[in-house]
């Protein structure tokens, strides 16, 4: 179906190759997962398969790509795109039309199909993704997950043999992601499509995968094999390269480090449950432990919200929310897309003006605090770090806050040196912040915030679009800040992240705060999880599965807790 021989590619203005000597064979009906750290050329590889490279992006290309018997560099793009369709991330930017029907027929119109056949294919494509009811809907009324499914249907209408998904769930909440994977699964089962997935949310899709291909940062193929081969034989390499792995594989690796058997790597919860059920965890005191965390002194919260409501265009976005955040807390705010998380956070920093007597910072009504004063008390890191780059160089970006606060030159220099060292961006110091990698940009935007000396830091989706390495670097950094006494509030979809790092969780659904408490209490509360469209982290599901065999497995949700339960005598 697809044959790639010694493919190399360099973008016109880049100094180094993005792909180097890639060899690849993909058979009909195979489902391939492509993994790699961010910037490793995964998307570039996808674009070479449907001819958009080198046709739409100029650059140096060598090697050969054959798709369905056609040589891709010599075939017009429109021939190739009929065979290979790509769904990208960011559904918003991929839409051409304003309503569903137009979007589906867009490709067919370009290929000059007669209207009668379009009608037939339109219905067929929409039913394949189970969205026939959405035919007459407006694009603006769709959720992110629905948009991605419509875009998929738009490709299906052209009836391609190969479908490529380039991080299609990056903007979706956990349930939206799961639904999208279900659709992919049904495509695999009913239509025998060849599917290439570029994705790092692995836990829910690993069972669909026939083969994994790992590409390194330099654009070289690092590994290839079945999921079991790749994740069990090369665990250390993957971790070192900062590549996402299934949670169960990470857990097994932790076991290995601690000399706990079994050494066989499970890829799904069922497998893990099978391998682990013979182990005997000692009594784990997690259940009692958590009450002590919660009973911290709540009389003097650093941030308090009282009966806050907010409506936009007569539509209630936030409804009567109350919240107390203690000093030094690590709070996660979770919920489905559109549940009001970001809107709530925006009230905390006065981006949206809260009404009087609703939001209090260190006991003072926030509407009485000036913008300037606010910005020294509480920091907000936006989803896209670039939005907060205001200076020409990394150095200026890192120091302007300190200069503003009147630190001496020596102090500033010391701080700058240690920060550059810490984030390993010394060589970029005179360069534009835009030249950094995605992960480094994120770290820089957090570091910039810190220069303003704030005690409370709010982060909106801090690990969005990052590889495992930069994501864990960021979390280590946040944890160290938290230990220094800073209060961290984090909006996220990643429940494993919540399990590992957050002390308390607030759950929002339809603008209401429906839960506040420790992470463990949340994972046990199925009703709340369902209402908020959340899924518990995979390891918590595993612990639930194992607790049938031994009740001491109950309530574990991170690798550390599993090890703790097994090691304690």
């Amino acid at each position, binding site marked *: 179906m697809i044959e790639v021989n010694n493919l190399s590619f360099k973008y016109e203005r880049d100094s180094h190759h993005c792909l180097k000597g890639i060899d690849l064979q993909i058979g009909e009906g195979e489902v391939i997962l492509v993994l790699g750290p961010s910037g490793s050329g995964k998307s570039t590889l996808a*674009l070479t398969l449907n001819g958009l490279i080198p046709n739409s992006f100029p650059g140096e290309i060598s090697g050969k790509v054959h798709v369905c018997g056609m040589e891709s560099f010599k075939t017009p793009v429109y021939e190739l795109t009929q065979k290979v369709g790509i769904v990208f991330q960011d559904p918003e930017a991929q*839409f051409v*039309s304003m309503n569903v029907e137009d979007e589906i027929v*867009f490709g067919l119109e*370009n290929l000059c199909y007669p209207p009668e056949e379009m009608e037939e294919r*339109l219905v067929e494509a929409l039913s394949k993704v189970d969205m026939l009811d959405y035919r007459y809907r407006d694009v*603006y009324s769709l959720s992110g997950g629905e948009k991605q499914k419509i875009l998929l249907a738009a490709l299906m209408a052209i009836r391609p043999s190969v479908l490529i998904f380039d991080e299609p769930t990056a903007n979706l909440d956990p349930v939206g992601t799961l639904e999208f994977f279900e659709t992919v699964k049904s495509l695999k089962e009913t239509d025998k499509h060849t599917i290439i997935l570029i994705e790092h949310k692995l836990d829910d899709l690993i069972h669909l995968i026939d083969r994994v291909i790992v590409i390194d940062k330099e654009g070289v193929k690092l590994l290839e094999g079945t999921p079991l081969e790749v994740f069990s034989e090369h665990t250390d390499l993957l971790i070192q390269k900062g590549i996402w792995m299934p949670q169960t594989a990470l857990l097994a690796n932790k076991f290995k480090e601690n000399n706990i058997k079994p050494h066989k790597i499970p890829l799904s919860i069922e497998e893990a449950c099978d391998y682990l059920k013979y182990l005997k965890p000692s009594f784990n005191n997690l259940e009692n432990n958590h009450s002590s965390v919660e009973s911290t002194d709540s009389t003097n919260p650093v941030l308090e919200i009282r009966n806050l409501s907010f409506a936009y265009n007569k539509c209630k976005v936030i409804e009567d929310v109350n919240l107390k955040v203690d000093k030094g807390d690590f709070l996660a705010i979770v919920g489905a897309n559109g549940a009001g998380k970001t809107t709530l956070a925006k009230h905390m920093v006065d981006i949206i003006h809260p009404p009087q007597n609703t939001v209090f910072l260190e006991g003072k009504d926030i509407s009485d605090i000036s*913008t300037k004063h606010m910005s020294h008390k509480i920091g*907000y890191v936006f989803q896209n770090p670039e939005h907060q780059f205001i200076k020409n160089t990394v150095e200026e970006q890192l120091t302007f806050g300190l200069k503003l606060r009147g630190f001496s030159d020596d102090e500033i220099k010391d701080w700058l040196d240690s920060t550059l060292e810490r984030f390993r961006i010394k060589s970029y110091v005179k360069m534009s912040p835009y030249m950094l990698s995605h992960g480094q940009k994120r770290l820089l935007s957090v570091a910039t915030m810190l220069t303003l000396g704030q005690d409370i830091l709010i982060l909106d989706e801090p690990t969005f679009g990052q590889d495992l390495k930069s994501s864990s670097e960021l979390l280590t950094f946040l944890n160290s800040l938290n230990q220094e006494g800073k209060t961290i509030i984090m909006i996220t979809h990643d429940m494993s992240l919540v399990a590992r790092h957050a002390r308390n969780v607030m759950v929002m659904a339809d603008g209401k705060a429906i839960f506040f408490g420790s992470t463990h209490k949340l994972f046990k509360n199925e009703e709340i999880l369902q209402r908020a469209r959340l899924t518990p982290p995979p390891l918590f599901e595993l612990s639930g599965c194992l607790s049938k065999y031994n009740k001491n497995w109950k309530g574990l949700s991170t690798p550390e807790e599993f090890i703790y339960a097994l090691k304690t005598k």
Partner: protein
Amino acid sequence: MKFFYYDNNSFLNKLNPISKIIAPIPLFILLCMVNDFWTPLAFIALTVFIILVLGKIPLTNFLKISAPVLIFSLSILILFLVAARNELTAGSPVLFTIGAFNIYQISLYAGLTMALRIYALLILALPFSFTTEPSNFIRSIIQNLRLPYKFSYGVMVAFRFLPMMETEFNVVRSAHKVMGIADESGVRSYFEKTKRYSVPLLVNAIRIGERTALSMDGRAFGAFKERTFYKKIEFKRVDWLYMLSFWSISVIILLILYLTGLMGELGFYFKGIG
């Protein structure tokens, strides 16, 4: 993004968008030249009738959209009242005095004429904008006027782009605000501000644009010189009928005004009463 578009099944909604654009064009030119207030008033009435009856637009929607136009027209009236040029007011009786301003009769007349003229001109476009779905408009341009589809689709995508960029702009503004950088006034900070906003906006616009382009190319956009259309938009007899009746009614109105002596002298420049 919908702008004013109101989705219903009215007569206007089913017309070809092009007929809705072409019909008022002669009137548009004519209204630029009338110097009395009866003519614009008559055509305001006609337009409002078309919008409310043929377009079935709810009165509140119409009022909401036309309010800014009305305010604009009123401000022109006020401008004329207090600042009409000297040779115009010379010899005209003073109606009343506010502080240092003498309000002349002729200023009131000229102001009303101008205000009504502008209001009439601007709402002439509303029957079209209230009842035309933007993508239908693009389709009719390509199908009936034979404009190259690559160009017209470019326009439509740019159209989709605007609200995305607006959102981006607001995010950047709040992102800078929470860093304690307030938007100050003054020339120097104006340049600084422009740079501070434009870089992230440009970077993101390019990124979004690139994605859209990939998504379009990935679905064979521009493969052939022509493309087929799922929804055919035809120029039907009813479209001719609409245009012809619109013009006939306009001529009748103009005739009546002329014969009753209510129409002033034609010309772009207001010279005075009769």
